[in-house]
């Protein structure tokens, strides 16, 4: 592998990092709304969101990518940039899973905390922001960091339907012109590993640290 090829791979890595960060940012916001909707006092909202999530978890990311890439043109949008389509589809897909994780964290806050907050005369918003969310957020950190690894890995298929130029796409191109799969896919795998492993390890470490109360 010469320096030009290495640079090419690093460009792909940049694409992967940008897409992952955008997904995490927007996905986080949408997941938060999803998690709150899943514990909404209105049964209609709960059921609607739960159904939507069930559907999204039952279809592959590639299909969501296809819908996000070809869908906007039906609404009159002429061209969709690959980054936009990739971010949109990854956001939707992540929200379906991360929203569920966060809902679990919200529900894991003991019932007594809700009741105590109510007894103190806190309003619904105060109870949420001052009592429930801080405790849920603490529990949510390790699985959220772990989920970032999923986002990074899932971003690797954005090139298949949408043609977004990320790390796996660049590795594929390099292999197509040189026929040295072990070198380029090995290098790509190493780069993915370098950014993912610290997150996985950090997630495990925090899980042990934050779980002190339950030991």
């Amino acid at each position, binding site marked *: 592998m010469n320096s030009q090829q290495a640079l090419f791979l690093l460009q792909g890595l940049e694409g992967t990092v940008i897409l992952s960060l955008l997904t995490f940012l927007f996905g986080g916001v949408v997941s938060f709304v999803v998690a709150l909707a899943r514990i909404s006092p209105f049964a209609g909202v709960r059921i609607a969101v739960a159904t939507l999530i069930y*559907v999204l*978890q*039952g*279809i*592959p*990311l*590639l*299909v*969501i990518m*296809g*819908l996000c890439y*070809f*869908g906007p043109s*039906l*609404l*009159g949008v002429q061209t969709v940039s690959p980054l936009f389509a990739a971010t949109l589809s990854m956001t939707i897909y992540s929200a379906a899973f991360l929203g569920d994780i966060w809902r679990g964290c919200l529900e894991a806050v003991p019932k007594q905390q809700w009741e105590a907050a109510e007894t103190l005369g806190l309003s619904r918003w105060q109870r949420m922001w001052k009592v429930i969310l801080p405790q849920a957020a603490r529990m949510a950190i390790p699985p959220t960091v772990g989920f970032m*690894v999923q986002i*990074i*890995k*899932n*971003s*690797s*298929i954005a090139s*298949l339907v949408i043609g977004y130029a990320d790390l*796996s796409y660049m*590795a*594929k191109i390099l*292999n197509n012109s040189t*026929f*040295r*799969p*072990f070198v380029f*896919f*090995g290098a*790509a*795998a190493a780069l*993915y*590993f370098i950014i*993912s*492993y610290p997150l*996985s390890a950090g997630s495990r470490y925090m899980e042990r640290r934050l779980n002190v109360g339950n030991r």
Partner: protein
Amino acid sequence: MNYEFDFGVVFAQWPLVLEGIVVTLRLAFFSTIFGFLLGTLCAVGRTGGPKWLQIVIGVYVEVIRNTPLIIQAYFIIFGLSSVGVRWPIEVGATFALVVNIGAYTTEIMRAGIESIKRTQIEAAECLGLGRLKIYLSIVVRQAMERVYPALTGQYVLLMLVTSVFSAVGVEELFGIANRIQSETYRNFEVFVLLGIAYLALSMLVRLAFFLLNLALFPRRRRLGTTL
């Protein structure tokens, strides 16, 4: 919006779609079975094997779980063909999937095995059961029973990610859909129907795991709890 939907031209291709569904399910079926066997063996090795084996399995699990499936697929499938191994593409795809899902299964089964209390094994030893018998019917069986929901979720995802193998030329459901799309130019219709098809398939897989649960763990059904 003045787009006219035309699902008819897509429906006309149903024999092809059916073939694709069969390939998708075949990939999922074999990789689930072999992946479960590989993962369970690795989990047993990781929890009770010699130190060097534990390290080897640990590295395998971390490498697979921290790299994307598509890169593993490229590495294994293009890699194997570059050193002269000529497998049918479906066999290569199944092999890559087994390597991938094996690592995830290892982690899930390891959690299950570690949750089995030491006293269970001691009790089994007192009853005079052999080592193999203890592992099979006391440790692995109970571990599997406990982590069954996690396994189900993982294997449903496995069925869904077989779609990635259209990128290496496997003619499974997604690959077929891509072909239909390039012949009919009905991209959106194809993807909508594809979503519905995959949703139905994931429900089917869930149903299969539910029925398997009833057959495998009658005790759980009787108690109505997860122990």
